[in-house]
C-alpha cells in the first residue's frame, strides 16, 4: 500500500512569493527579449525597405535621365546639325575623281556600332534582397536554427 509522505515543514511564505515573482519576472524578461528582437529586426527591415524603395526611385530617375540625355545628344549630332557644323567649319563635299584611295591592311569594313542602350537586366537573376529582410521571425528561426542545424547540430 502506497504511503504518502508529508513534509515536516513548509517553505516560508516569503520564499514562495519570491519564487513566484522570479518565475513571472523570468517570463516577462523572455517576452521582452523576444519583443526587442522582433522590433529591432522589424525596424531594420523597414529601414532597408524604405532605402530600397528610394534607391529604386533614384535608379528609375537616372534611367529616364540617361534616355533623355541620349536623345539630347542625338539632337545635337543629327544629320542636319552635323552638316551645318561641317560647312561652318569649312568642309566641302568631296569630288570622287579627286579622292585618294589607299588600302588599309587588316581593315575588313565597318563593324556594327557600339551603341549605348539601357543596361542589361535579367529577371532570372538571383534575388538581391537577403531573406532575413523578408522573413518573419518565425521563418528566420526555423530556417536558421532548425533547418540549418544550429540547434540540431546536423551541420558543422
Amino acid at each position, binding site marked *: 500500500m502506497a504511503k504518502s509522505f508529508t513534509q515536516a515543514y513548509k517553505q516560508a511564505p516569503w520564499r514562495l512569493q519570491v519564487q513566484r515573482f522570479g518565475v513571472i519576472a523570468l517570463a516577462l524578461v523572455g517576452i521582452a527579449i523576444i519583443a526587442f528582437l*522582433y522590433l529591432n529586426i522589424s525596424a531594420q527591415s523597414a529601414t532597408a525597405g524604405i532605402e530600397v524603395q528610394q534607391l529604386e526611385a533614384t535608379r528609375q530617375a537616372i534611367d529616364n535621365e540617361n534616355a533623355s540625355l541620349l536623345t539630347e545628344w542625338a539632337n545635337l549630332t543629327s544629320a542636319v546639325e552635323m552638316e551645318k557644323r561641317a560647312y561652318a567649319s569649312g568642309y566641302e563635299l568631296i569630288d570622287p575623281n579627286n*579622292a585618294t584611295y589607299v588600302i588599309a591592311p587588316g581593315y575588313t569594313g565597318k563593324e556594327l556600332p557600339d551603341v549605348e542602350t539601357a543596361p542589361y537586366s535579367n529577371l532570372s537573376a538571383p534575388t538581391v534582397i537577403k531573406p532575413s529582410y523578408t522573413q518573419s521571425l518565425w521563418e528566420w528561426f526555423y530556417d536558421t536554427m532548425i533547418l540549418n542545424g544550429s540547434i540540431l547540430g546536423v551541420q558543422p
Partner: protein
Amino acid sequence: MSQDKFKGRIQYIKFGFLGVALIIFAQLVRILITGNDLVSPDTRFVTYNPERGEIYDRNGNLFAGNRIVYEISVNLTTVNANQNQDQIVQILFNVIGKDYSSKFLAAQEYNASQTDPEKKIYYLPLDDFIDPEKITYLENYLEEYATKRLDKKVAKKLPELNLNGLEWWPHLVRTYPESSLASNVIGFVAFQDRTAPTYFGIEEKYNQLLAGKSITVEVSDDPNKMNDLAEVPPGASLILTIDRQIQKSMEQIIDHAVERTGSVSGVIVVEDPETGEILAMATTPRMDLNQYSSELEKFPEMGSFNRAIGVPYEPGSVFKVITMAAALDAGVVTPDTTFTDTGIIYVGQTAIYNWDGGAWGLQDMQGCMQHSLNVCLAWIAQQMGSDLFYQSLENFGIGRSTNIDLDGEIVYPLSVPGDKYWSESNLGTNSFGQGLAATPIQMVTAISAVANDGKIMAPHIVKATIQDGHIYEYTPQVMLMPIKAETAHTLTDMLAKSLEEEASTALVDGYRVAGKTGTGEIAIPGEGYVTELTNASFVGWGPTDDPKFLVYIWLEKPTSDRWGSIVAAPVFAEAVQKLVVYLNIPPDEIRQELYSK
C-alpha cells in the same frame, strides 16, 4: 475588507492580465507564423512599363529615342482642404502659360452631380507632356520664393505660397531626333494617345520587340512587407541597315528631282544586292515624326506613307530586265539572237508598237534592250510561251510579297493564264512592264538577281537586334535563285554596253554601271492609257564587275518630260556620284590598280 476578499480580487486581476498577455502572445505567434501571407489593404498592383527600345542607323546614329516629359495633376481632396485652387491656377498660368481653371470647374460640377462617393473625382490630371524646362522653372520659382520668405521682413509682404495637392512626375515619351529623315521607314508612336499605338514602318512592324514586356506586380507601401522590386527589362533596340548619310543624300536628290521634273512624288531605293540590305529608302512626301498629328494629312492615299513598299505601279520598260534575264537563262535567246523589228507585233488580239511607233529593223538582243523595243520583248515572250514566261516571273518573286521587315507592304497580284482577268495579250504587254503592277521594292528585289550572280537576297531593314545586353545580327538569306550566275553577268554586260553606246545621262565618270530606263503609261479608269501621264523609272547597279549598290528610281507623273531616259536617268547618275563616296568605292581604274598590288 477581509484579507481573503483582497486576495481574491488580486487573483482576478492576475488572471485578467494573464489573459490579455496570452491573447497578445497568441496574436504575435499567429503573425509570426503566417507572416508574409497576410493580405494587407496597403497592397496594390502596379504595372511597370519598360523603356521603349531605341532605333539606330547602321553607324549608331539615333533615329528614335525617348525623352522625359511631365504630367501635372492635383489631388482635389487636398486642394479643397487647403482652399488653394486659385493659387495653383495662377502659378501654373505663370509657368506653363495655360489656364486650368476650367478643368477645376468641370471637375467640381461633375462631383456636385454625383451622389455616390466612389464615382467622384479625387485625382484630376491637368496636363501632360510638359517640357522638363518648365518644371525646372517651376521648381526654381518655388525654391526662390521659399528662400525669400526666410527673411522675416520680406515674409510679411509675401503671402505664403500653398501648392499642397499639386503634383508632377516624369515619364518617357517617344521622340525622333532626325525629325523627317527616313520617316517613311521609321513610322511613329502616337505617344499623345494613352494607349500609344504605333503606325507604319519599323515602329509598327517591330512594336512587340521595341515595346518590351510590361510587368504587373503586387507591391506594398508597408516597407515591412518589402518584396523584390520588379526588374523591367527595356524593349529591344534595333540597328537598321539604313545609312543616315546616304538616306539624307537620297532624300535631297529625290526632293530636287521631284521639284525639277514637276512630278507628283518620287522614290529612290538603294540596296546592297550582295546582302539584301536596304541602305536608303527615300520617298516623297515625308513628315516630321515629332509632329505626327498635324502632318498625317500629307498621306491621304493608302500606302502613300512609304511609296517604295505601299504603292504598286506599272513599271514599264525597267521590267524588260526581268523578261530578258528569263529568256537568256532559259536559252530562248542569246545576246546574238537577231530580230527584225517591223514596228508592230500582234499578241492575242492586241497590236503592240514601240515607244516611238517606229520600226527599228534588224536588231540583236542588246539592241532590243538599248532601244527599249516593246515589239522585240513581246516577241521574246511569245518565243518563251506563256507557261515559261509566267513561271519565270514567279521565280523572280513578281506578284508576291518580298516580306521586307516594314509594315504596310502592298502586293498587286500577278494575273497568269487561267485567271479571270488574264488574256493572251497580257503576255505581250507584261513583257515590257505594262498590264501588271509592282512596288519599287518588288522591282529592286527581282532585279537584284541580275546584280548578284543570279541570287535574290531577302531585302531587309533591320541589321541587328539588341536585347538583354546581347546583339543578334541578321544573317543575309538567299530568297530566290531565278537565273544562273553567267546569265546575270551576260545581261549586266549587255545593259552596261547599252548605256555606254547610248551615251546615257545615267553614266558616271570613272565607274562602269549597268541599267535600264522605264516609262510606264498610266491607265485612267474610263479613258484607258493616257500617254501624257507616265511613271518614269530607272534601275541601275554597279560597279559592274562587283556590284555594291543597286539603285531604283521612280518619278510619278513627271510634267517636264514624260520619258524615264530624260527625267530618271540623270537622277541615277546623281545618286551614284554620292554613293561611291559614302561607300568608299574607288573609280574602276584605281580599284583595279589597288587590287593588282
